[in-house]
């Protein structure tokens, strides 16, 4: 059965059939497109020329961007604290070639899979129920699934470094832990950093969304402006969001360049 599914041509055929079927089963007439939205969309697009650029509002935007950044950095810091040790364990390289070692790795991998398979918004709902609307709920809601994702990627990258230098380290008497910190870590570091930066971008996005559990920041301000239909303010806030992501991208490029050979 599985062998059959691995056949690429058969798989493409099945997926294609599913797509065609979905096209046929859509009710194309009537309410498929909500015509009233076009007016609002037009209004929204026109509001971008120009966005709200009054100094008072820019200050609000800047302040909100700073708050979003702090939430994102706080969440990602906790995520790294979760992800790095569990990633090391999940890589299965710390206690190699023993039954205990492989069950530790399996346990770590399972834990990482569980915490990352729940979306940050769902975690947010859980933590709001536990702590109420608070910064802590928002930070943990991002940190936990991100920790799971980081742990998985870290584990993969640490397991996936060239073997020869590690063999040489072992030959000069290094233990599994020193092989890890003298060989695997330095060799995987550029990959680990670049992925962590990518996750920082994602954390900024997620922190903006978290306004609905009551934290301040860009998402909160966007929500307020939307409620009052002040679309030009929304555009300004979106620009701040894009600027944050671009800044992280520039920073990450710089760091990676300094690490490159």
């Amino acid at each position, binding site marked *: 059965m599985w062998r059959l599914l691995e056949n690429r041509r058969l798989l493409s055929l099945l997926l294609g059939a599913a797509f065609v079927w979905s096209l046929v089963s859509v009710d194309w007439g009537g309410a498929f497109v909500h015509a009233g939205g076009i007016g609002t969309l037009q209004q929204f697009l026109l509001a971008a020329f120009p966005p709200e650029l009054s100094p008072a509002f820019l200050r609000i935007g800047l302040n909100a961007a700073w708050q979003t950044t702090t939430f994102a950095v706080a969440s990602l810091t906790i995520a790294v604290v979760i992800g790095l040790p569990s990633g090391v364990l999940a890589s299965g390289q710390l206690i190699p070639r023993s039954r205990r070692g492989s069950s530790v790795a399996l346990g770590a991998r399972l834990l990482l899979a569980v915490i990352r398979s729940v979306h940050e918004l769902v975690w947010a709902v859980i933590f709001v129920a536990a702590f109420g609307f608070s910064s802590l709920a928002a930070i943990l809601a991002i940190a936990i699934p991100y920790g799971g994702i980081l742990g998985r990627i870290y584990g993969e990258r640490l397991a996936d470094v060239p073997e*020869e*230098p590690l063999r040489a380290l072992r030959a000069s*008497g*290094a233990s599994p*832990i020193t092989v890890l910190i003298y060989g695997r870590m*330095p*060799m995987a*570091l550029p990959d680990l950093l670049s992925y962590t930066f990518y996750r920082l971008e994602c954390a900024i996005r997620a922190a903006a969304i978290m306004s609905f559990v009551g934290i301040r920041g860009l998402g909160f301000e966007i929500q307020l402006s939307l409620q009052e239909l002040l679309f030009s303010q929304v555009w300004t806030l979106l620009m701040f969001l894009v600027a944050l992501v671009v800044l992280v991208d520039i920073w990450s490029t710089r760091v990676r360049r300094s690490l490159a050979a």
Partner: protein
Amino acid sequence: MKEGPSPNGGLVVALDIGKSFAAVQALAPLSLTVHRGEKVALAGPSGSGKTTLLYLLAGIIQPDQGSVSIDGRRLSDLRPGGELAGLVSVMHQQFDLVPNLPVVHNVLAGRLGRWSLLRSILSLVWPQERQLAQDTLTQLGIGDKLQERTSRLSGGEQQRVALARLLVQASLIVLADEPVSSLDPARADDMLRLMTGLVESSGKSLVVSLHSPDLIRKYFSRVVGLREGLVQFDLPVEQMSDGVLERLYQLDDDNSRVAGVAVT
């Protein structure tokens, strides 16, 4: 063989060791004694068992039969790690350095077998025994590269770093698997001069696999010829004639016939 003083005062004593991989005999059972200060060259065509013999002597792989002892201690009784690292060190064909660490850590990696875990971790922040690394690199002529990132060094410099790591490991015997096969003649000569010189001055033994008759004559005291897993000769280097080496590397009759056909 029981523990105790090794026969003939040999530093490395291999007794009747053999190794097969799957059904292929990589090395027919052989015995080999290397004395303190001896510089042994292993010659032989590809696939003759040179690497297998070196790995057996290094304890990297275990023999199917027989035993290897270094300084009277059987390798099979030693746990891998610190103890073994104090007895034997190996230089591979590639330099096997960690490219994005500074040179100083790649050199001091040779000390990891002697350091406690705490000291090893601490050393990444404050290099321990930094002076030792500095002196060794200076000895090898690259004293100014201590803080450089290893990947920024040239191939020849990287090989010196690998040699420095071997030296700070300070094992009793140094093994090297074709350390000069990827170097041009001048650098190969330079490398062997450094290796044999440093081994001589510290009273260690050296076993190196290589192909060049000139380099063998110039730098080694003894030559062992291997072919198809069998020892063909084991001579003081003065008694090694050109004919002996030529026969060692000669293609089989079958092979030479095929080669002849290909040429015409």
